[in-house]
């Protein structure tokens, strides 16, 4: 048992720290505090990463990856979260990028990969459809061949940040006369194509993250098809194996927990700081203990992967426990804010309001409910764990 980093790893950590200190500072870090700055900050940040060669460190080096080991990836992730720098937007760099370099043709690779690395295009994901939920194989959005084009009709839902997107990677049905998982193709759609309507879906945090995207006779050139027709399901599934380690969100939760402690030291009830309130102490320590454990669960998975093994049985709990912890932190923060947790702080400064984080706590709490629904709901995760880990 040895959790020390090697000399080389320590040197890498220093490099990461130096980079973050320089890159996540000044204008960009300031801008991130402003509402509505999400896309601008993400693009700015991803370009800085790309400049350093770290936009997609786990891609193969030939396509612009950095050749990081899992441990390096863990080090970067820990340091990034510790300073509060954002994760990259996953759709281009973590999702469609790997599909393109794995299954795309040379032309597609040359056309899309550099632009993904440099955040020149904003990507969104077209998997879920209205009424289909977790049951992807039932998808109905149809692509029919018409000369050099596919003609797309149908709709996608829960499409994160489609309102910002230049491109969508999309699963479409190209054959209806076969088993449901077959007959699906993986296609790239220019979001500026005529016939696309993006309908905002406001979520319970009162924000606009999600959309329904409706396709009405949208023409997509056949060269935008990835791999073979009707094999899209295979390509999509291969994605799931990527990027398992960051799923627990341990590094971000650590930062949130440490911020929560600071807030609790300043929040006072009847002359006593909330950090000295017994009920608060119990709840925060419940979370902290689980998080201390989960950090090592993640390290155990990582250690296994570093040796070239699969992620192991422990990995199935990374999302379940990780999201439980994320939600618990958000809930405690909301409760900590007291009455101010209810306030929609619309254009009013914290000073005018008399409180600093209630609005963020509310938004964070409400949106955190999605963590156990999207990306395979808790129920689905438990079914999978029962079946594949416990053999039930």
């Amino acid at each position, binding site marked *: 048992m040895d959790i020390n980093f090697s000399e080389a790893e320590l040197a890498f950590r220093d490099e990461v720290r130096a980079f973050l200190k320089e890159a996540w500072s000044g204008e960009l870090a300031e801008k991130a505090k402003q509402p509505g700055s999400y896309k601008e900050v993400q693009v700015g940040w991803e370009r800085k990463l790309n400049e350093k060669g770290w936009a997609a460190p786990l891609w193969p080096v030939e396509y612009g990856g950095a050749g990081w080991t899992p441990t390096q990836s863990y080090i970067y992730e820990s340091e990034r979260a510790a300073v509060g720098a954002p994760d990259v937007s996953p759709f281009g760099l973590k999702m469609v990028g790997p599909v393109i370099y794995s299954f795309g043709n040379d032309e597609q690779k040359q056309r899309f990969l550099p632009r993904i690395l440099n955040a020149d295009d904003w990507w969104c994901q077209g998997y879920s459809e209205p009424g289909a939920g977790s*049951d992807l194989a039932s998808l109905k959005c149809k692509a029919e061949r018409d000369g050099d084009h596919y003609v797309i009709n149908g709709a996608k839902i829960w499409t994160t940040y489609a309102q910002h997107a230049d491109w969508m990677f999309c699963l479409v049905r190209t054959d209806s006369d076969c088993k449901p998982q077959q007959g699906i193709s993986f296609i790239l759609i220019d979001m500026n194509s005529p016939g696309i309507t993006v309908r905002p879906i406001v979520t319970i945090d009162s924000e606009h993250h999600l959309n329904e995207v409706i396709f009405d006779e949208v023409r997509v050139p056949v060269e935008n098809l990835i791999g073979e027709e009707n094999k899209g399901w295979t390509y999509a599934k291969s994605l799931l194996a990527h990027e398992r380690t960051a799923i627990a969100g341990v590094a971000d939760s650590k930062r949130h927990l440490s911020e929560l402690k600071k807030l609790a030291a300043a929040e006072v*009830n009847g*002359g006593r700081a909330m950090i000295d309130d017994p009920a608060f102490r119990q709840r925060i320590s419940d979370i902290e203990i689980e998080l201390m454990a989960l950090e090592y669960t993640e390290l155990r998975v990582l250690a296994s992967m570093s040796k070239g093994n699969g992620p192991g049985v422990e990995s199935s709990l990374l999302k379940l426990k990780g999201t439980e912890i994320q939600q618990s932190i958000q809930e405690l923060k909301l*409760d900590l804010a007291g009455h101010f947790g209810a*306030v929609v702080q619309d254009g*009013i400064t914290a000073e*005018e309001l008399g409180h600093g984080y209630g609005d963020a706590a509310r938004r964070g709490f409400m949106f955190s409910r999605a963590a156990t629904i*999207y990306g395979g709901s*808790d129920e689905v995760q438990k079914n999978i764990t029962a079946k594949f880990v416990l053999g039930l």
Partner: protein
Amino acid sequence: MNFDFSEEQQMLKDSVARFVQDEYDFEARNKVVANESGYSQENWQKFAELGWLSIPFAEALGGFGGGATDTMVVMEELGKGLVAEPFAASVLMFGGLLQASAQNDERDALIGGVIDGSIQGAVAYAEAQSRFELQDVLCRAEADGEGYRLNGEKSLVLNAMSADKIIVSARVSGEQNDEQGIALFLVDAKVEGISKTALRTMDAQLVANLKLDNVAATALCGAGEGLGLLKQMRQQVIVALSAEALGIMEKLNATTLEYCKTRKQFGVAIGSFQALQHRMVDTFMAYEQCKSLLYRTVCSIEQGEDNNDIEKNVLALKVMVGKAGKLIGGEAIQLHGGMGMTDELDVGHYVRRLLTINAAFGDADYQQQRFAEVSLAS
């Protein structure tokens, strides 16, 4: 022994239920809250005509002379409809404090105005730093002739933007958190020196922060009585809000159950999955237990039990409603899946109201510690 409502109570319940059913579906409700004032003046007049605004007031004051049960049945039904009109803020809090304060002609006239719907009121008891402590008051009152002048700030005052009159807690003497030295004052909402910052809360209510700069006010009670009156109001309003929460929980459970029976995934209704069934049994039990505790509390008030016993019931109720609300709200969103995350569905709106009720007048954690003090001392 029985838990039946009287004929009068049943009629009252039916009348509120009918209003919600016929005139306050989710769409109508969304239009109402989109109003500048956050509610519909037309609805308010209807409430007055139907006599609902008179419920807690003594017959001698022109009221219905209702008890805790009457308020409960109204609030429970209002909860089911997520009714935004400021019944709790104006009738129960403002009206309740007026009724509890010393009799005089102005007071009686104001209560009359509350009853007939012509007067809207608000109670400004919280301050930015006060969190859940009623005695954490920095706002100061100084005598000025027959009246007083108020200086300070008040936070998140319910219904303040529509109120004609506002009751303000302010300190005549003592330091922050002293239990003594707090009195209640009546101020005109449009009087010189008041400035208001309007804010929306997540349950679509309109609240306001107040700045009071030498505002003219009349005292409603002596400096030894303000805190006691506020505590009494808190006790009554907690019971009322708990009844509202019970209505919301019933609605959420019913909506979720219905969804699970109809929503299909992988070819079967998701309500056929045993793990979900057991969780719905848990939310069902949480609801029934809240209902029992609400009945216990209301009965103890109606029968005039010892105030220590009433307080213990009220605190237990607030704790259980807070926790059950989180459980039921959380499961409602989770079991609705992606749909549960959308603002288009009513589920999230009900959940946000439950969360607001949890924080109102002290959340579950806070009240559980107070409960333990009362319970373990006895």
